[in-house]
């Protein structure tokens, strides 16, 4: 919050950055393809479902947007349990893309969000097994009035087919991007996997194939064993690592990708605080998704949004938009 007292203390900063006096709403606003966001913070896919239960805790209108749980053409039941395991400053999950399927999402989940939060932009996470699956879901879900962008999940480490197969091969990733771009009514963001030797060829391939933006990072493949049973803790064996433990990896990969492409990036990976969010923006992100933090603190997203103005003040950053532009120049 910019109080007059604070302005006085930071007199110099105020002079250097006249934008410091922007209304706090404008300081946080960001603009990405398809997404005019009042602030850069949104829950990450799979960590917020379709928002209904979180709406009991706070007004979802506070959020910049929502990335909903992966949608597949048919309902998916996911993997056997246990599906989650805690790790040092993180967690493993192998949910296996459980979701009620496109019909239920189009018929119930999205209309519920549209009725209760008509101004809240939705980013639909789309998954599938074959290219035809992805194309079918993109075509339909992009017609929902509140879906403002698609996040193509080519990076799920927890399903046997689809997902990561597309996300680790530049040619397949590009072909899938082009096919989905051709049918989608809204901008298409591709969710990149960190589980590759070099992420840049994939980013460049999907950029060339018509992607409007990138989201990164999905989880890192990991594993834990139970010393007592000598078996993996997760029924799936391996799972995706998320949470604060992966933030440095997210920062590195966002930075690397930002060096080679102009595509806007929605960054994610271990964000727990407003400072973490700014770190991802400094690395090259234009907006930030918050995943695992929702489990530690169900009010993580509004808390981070409320903390942002103060942290911007602390580092004498006039606005998120200014920080994004600075980062572009540094590149």
């Amino acid at each position, binding site marked *: 919050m910019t109080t007059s007292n604070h302005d006085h203390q930071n007199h110099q900063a105020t002079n250097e950055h006249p934008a410091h006096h922007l209304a706090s709403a404008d300081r946080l606003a960001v603009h990405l393809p398809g997404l005019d966001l009042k602030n850069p913070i949104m829950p990450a896919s799979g960590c917020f479902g379709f928002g209904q239960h979180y709406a009991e*805790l706070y007004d979802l209108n506070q959020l910049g947007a929502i990335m909903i749980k992966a949608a597949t053409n048919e309902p998916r*039941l996911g993997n056997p349990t246990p599906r989650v395991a805690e790790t040092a400053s993180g967690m493993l999950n192998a949910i296996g893309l459980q979701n009620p399927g496109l019909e239920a999402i189009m018929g119930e989940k999205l209309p519920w969000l549209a009725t209760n939060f008509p101004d809240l932009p939705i980013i639909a996470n789309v998954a599938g097994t074959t290219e035809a699956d992805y194309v079918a879901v993109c075509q339909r879900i992009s017609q929902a009035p509140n879906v403002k962008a698609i996040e193509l999940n080519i990076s799920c480490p927890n399903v046997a087919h689809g997902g990561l197969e597309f996300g680790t091969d530049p040619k397949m990733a590009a072909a899938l991007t082009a096919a989905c771009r051709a049918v989608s009514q809204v901008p298409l963001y591709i969710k990149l996997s960190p589980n590759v030797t070099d992420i840049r060829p994939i980013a460049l391939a999907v950029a060339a194939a018509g992607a409007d933006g990138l989201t990164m990072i999905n989880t890192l493949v990991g594993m834990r064993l139970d010393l007592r049973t000598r078996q993996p803790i997760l029924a799936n064996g391996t799972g995706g690592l998320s949470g604060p433990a992966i933030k440095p990896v997210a920062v590195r990969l966002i930075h690397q990708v930002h060096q080679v492409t102009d595509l806007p990036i929605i960054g994610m990976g271990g964000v727990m605080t407003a400072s973490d969010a700014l770190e991802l923006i400094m690395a090259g992100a234009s907006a930030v998704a918050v995943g695992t933090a929702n489990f530690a603190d169900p009010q993580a997203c509004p808390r981070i949004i409320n903390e942002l103005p103060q942290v911007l003040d602390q580092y004498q950053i006039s606005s998120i938009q200014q920080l994004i532009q600075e980062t572009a120049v540094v590149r």
Partner: protein
Amino acid sequence: MIQEQMTIVRQHQLTDDVYELVLAGAMARLPWTPGQFVEVQVPDPRLLLRRPFGVAALDPAQGQLTLLYKTVGAGTAALSQARPGEKLAVLGPLGHGFPSDFLQAGKQALLIGGGTGIPPLYALGRQLHQQGIQLTSALGFATKSQFFYQAEFAALGDLACATNDGSLGFRGHLGLLLDTQFADAQTRFAAIYACGPTGLLMAVNNRYRDHPHAYLSLESRMACGVGECYACVVPAASDTAATAVYKVCDEGPVFATGEVKL
């Protein structure tokens, strides 16, 4: 459901590894159904996930609720070090509790609890006792020294105890105690409620699958605790084609016998 910073009123060690924790806050004044649970942020910042615990007692007048938990790992160990006056972030009430609207005063109900499964049964027992339901509790532990809340349950009605080593009450598994002492349970009790380890729940599920009002409270590994992440699912029993699962945190943790695949 609310999220709040609750204040530790007192914490008390009941056995070698079981603690009674009393928390104060507005949550204790909300409407609760026994069997609903809370998710507690344990006081160790490296541990991200909240720990689910049943609520053993509610005191809306004082604005307090009681948890009973066993130290089994890092999270519960950290919790056991917390001191009165400290605050804990708590989310609740969560899930759906034990149905009991159908019970009329004078009817009989059976509570079957194993180990740390007994906390929600105590909350239920207190409520049913007040409503004039005749209660019988069958509680099982590995050994006598692990028993807790024996007097509390005894104050609610009849109490039958089982220990694996026979150091207290019946010697052997609770399932065997049910067979020997409650062979008429199916007809005698208008409601049967169970909470405890999976083995116990399977024993109860097998015995009272056709009872119209027999309920099990399940445990499951959770992340969100509110029904949005699909971490905690359990397959539906009906579901031979594997087409249905329930979320334990949201659609449970209480299910009717015969409803889920254990």
